[in-house]
């Protein structure tokens, strides 16, 4: 703790704060642009860290990571285009709030949840870096498998009116994740003879197509784009009651985000979906989720902003980068001539604690920057629909192009935009398909890995305490909406009978 306080003293120095500010701003820009994820934004900055003092370069890289996790939510809320995969869950309620004229409120809650979730995760990092890294090592294939299934339990919440079509949509998403070369046998599966599909479908083109382009096509088909009346600029903020209501959710999801971040291979996308599904499971009156419920913005945003600090746990304590972004951060350590791992805490303990302190400061700077850009961002949505729609389309296609530097990715956006449009038109749920797609690789790889290790025995899936905890949470998550619906229906019937 003493080292952390010393680190805070150094982090609050003007030069250090300037580097963190630059990192946060760059991160927000990178996160807000589809195709330029946290890892890409960090890698673009990496060459500039050669020769820099590690006390400045490493906090700057970490600040990019912090900024990018927030930045992804901005286009997700305003134009239904998640800047990063982690912001996909924010689209569900954030965009609906924006459609109701509550975009400012949604952005403000996203910022509040992101900053508070991030701060919580920094505290968790400081106090539990060693024990949590040991806990993360207990996660094997079956635990990862059940964790992904738990994330899928949110399907009911994003299925709309038809649970069966929602289920088919989620399985369709799982199927999309199968496309490409099988990582176990190198067999090409469902590539339709297209070589570019060998590496599988890129996440950003699928997300942007399913969410943004399908929405544009829906608006054009429904004639909404012809409405010449401009939206009036109106800034809204969350009420005190809403802040009070969301704070416990934010704290819980921030903590959960840290734990998920500490698990190698899990990451912010999975954390945000788990945050969304668990909040829906635990909270009361959840029937408004998916229609613009502010809790549906707070939960995923807090969870995904908890991941950067959580991701530092295996990196600093074990020298294992759990995601692309932490791998780039590790490269930053290497460039600075520092080795990550247990010996870091023995030989140079001031470096990891200074980094943690800088992440704490980065959250405070993020809050200030986020508040400054809030109003200009909301003004953007008051632009005429025709111009906004055309800009979204160009933004979507160029963003996807940036992921592969190939126009093929833009064609994928169009394809998935049209598929998403048809799915919406016929009562299916594109968000459920996105959820399946995001979690698909984790489900299949870990299921097969577990079956390989057990020589085909299914009992391996029920062999540890963590497995059972995750199974119970999944069953609870699936059944809870139906149980609450049944109870409230019975209550209403009883009240009606009494009144009669």
């Amino acid at each position: 703790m003493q080292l952390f306080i010393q680190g805070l003293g150094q982090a609050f120095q003007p030069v250090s704060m300037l580097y963190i500010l630059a990192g946060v701003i760059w991160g927000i820009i990178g996160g807000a642009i589809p195709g330029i994820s946290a890892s890409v934004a960090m890698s673009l900055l990496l060459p500039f860290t050669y020769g820099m003092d590690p006390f400045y370069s490493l906090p700057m890289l970490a600040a990019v990571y912090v900024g990018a996790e927030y930045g992804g939510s901005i286009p997700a809320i305003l134009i239904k285009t998640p800047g990063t995969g982690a912001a996909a869950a924010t689209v569900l309620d954030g965009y609906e709030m924006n459609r109701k004229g509550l975009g400012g409120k949604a952005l403000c809650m996203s910022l509040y949840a992101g900053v508070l979730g991030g701060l919580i995760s920094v505290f968790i990092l400081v106090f539990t870096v060693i024990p949590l890294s040991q806990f993360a090592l207990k996660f094997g294939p079956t635990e990862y498998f059940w964790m992904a299934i738990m994330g899928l339990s949110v399907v009911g919440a994003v299925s709309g009116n038809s649970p069966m079509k929602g289920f088919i949509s989620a399985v369709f998403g799982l199927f999309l994740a199968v496309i490409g070369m099988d990582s176990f046998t190198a067999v090409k599966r469902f590539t339709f003879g297209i070589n570019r599909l060998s590496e599988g479908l890129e996440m950003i083109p699928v997300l942007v197509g399913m969410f943004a382009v399908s929405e544009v096509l829906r608006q054009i088909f429904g004639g909404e784009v012809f409405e010449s009346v401009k939206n009036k600029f109106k800034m809204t903020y969350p009420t005190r009651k809403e802040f009070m209501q969301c704070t416990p959710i934010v704290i819980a999801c921030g903590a959960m985000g840290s734990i998920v971040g500490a698990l190698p291979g899990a990451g912010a996308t999975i954390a945000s979906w788990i945050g969304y599904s668990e909040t829906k499971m635990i909270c009361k009156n959840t029937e408004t989720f998916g229609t613009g419920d502010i809790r549906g913005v707070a939960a995923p945003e807090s969870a995904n902003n908890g991941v950067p600090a959580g991701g530092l746990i295996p990196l600093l304590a074990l020298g294992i980068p759990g995601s692309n972004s932490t791998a780039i951060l590790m490269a930053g350590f290497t460039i600075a001539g520092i080795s990550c791992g247990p010996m870091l805490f023995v030989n140079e303990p001031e470096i990891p604690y200074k980094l943690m302190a800088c992440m704490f400061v980065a959250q405070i700077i993020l809050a200030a920057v986020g508040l400054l850009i809030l109003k200009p961002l909301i003004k953007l949505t008051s632009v005429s629909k025709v111009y906004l729609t055309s800009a979204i389309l160009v933004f979507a296609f160029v963003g996807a192009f940036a992921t592969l530097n190939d126009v093929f990715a833009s064609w994928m956006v169009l394809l998935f935009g049209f598929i998403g449009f048809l799915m919406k038109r016929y009562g299916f749920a594109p968000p459920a398909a996105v959820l399946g797609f995001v979690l698909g690789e984790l489900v299949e790889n870990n299921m097969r890995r577990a079956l390989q290790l057990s020589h085909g025995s299914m009992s391996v899936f029920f062999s540890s305490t963590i497995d059972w905890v995750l199974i119970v949470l999944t069953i609870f998550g699936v059944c809870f909406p139906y149980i609450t619906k049944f109870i409230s229906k019975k209550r209403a019937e009883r009240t009606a009978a009494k009144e009669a």
Partner: protein
Amino acid sequence: MKNFMNRERIIALVCLAFAAYIWIVAGTFPASFLDNVGPAKYPRLLASLIGITAVILFATSNGPVKPIKGKREFRSLAYILLCIMIYLLIFTRIGFILSTIAFLLALTLYFDHRELKTRLKIAVPYAVCFSVFLYFFFAKLLGVLLPSIVL
């Protein structure tokens, strides 16, 4: 017959056909002696899930089906899809800036219903400025290799 084969049942049949397709194609994947699960079982599991759900959907959709509400702008939808396809085709040939200007003009001039003079006054500067800004932002600042300018 028309009532029996309602929209929901047709959707269920399409899903069933899709599941059958996955099942059949998965059967063509070669098995490996290194992997006792194989590349086909998981897709077949997914196909089974889709197939079973589709059968339930077919069996339970026996009542009248609500028509899909709302306006239908088939012409606008066809126009936008055509514009996007042309944009993606010319994107790499004539460069990012020119193709994006053309694409933005094609959309804004078609969907904005004001007088042509007013439309042009707004649409042309918007298309040019937005395209140039995006080019420099992505290509120069972020290092994305956008197709270069052809003038």
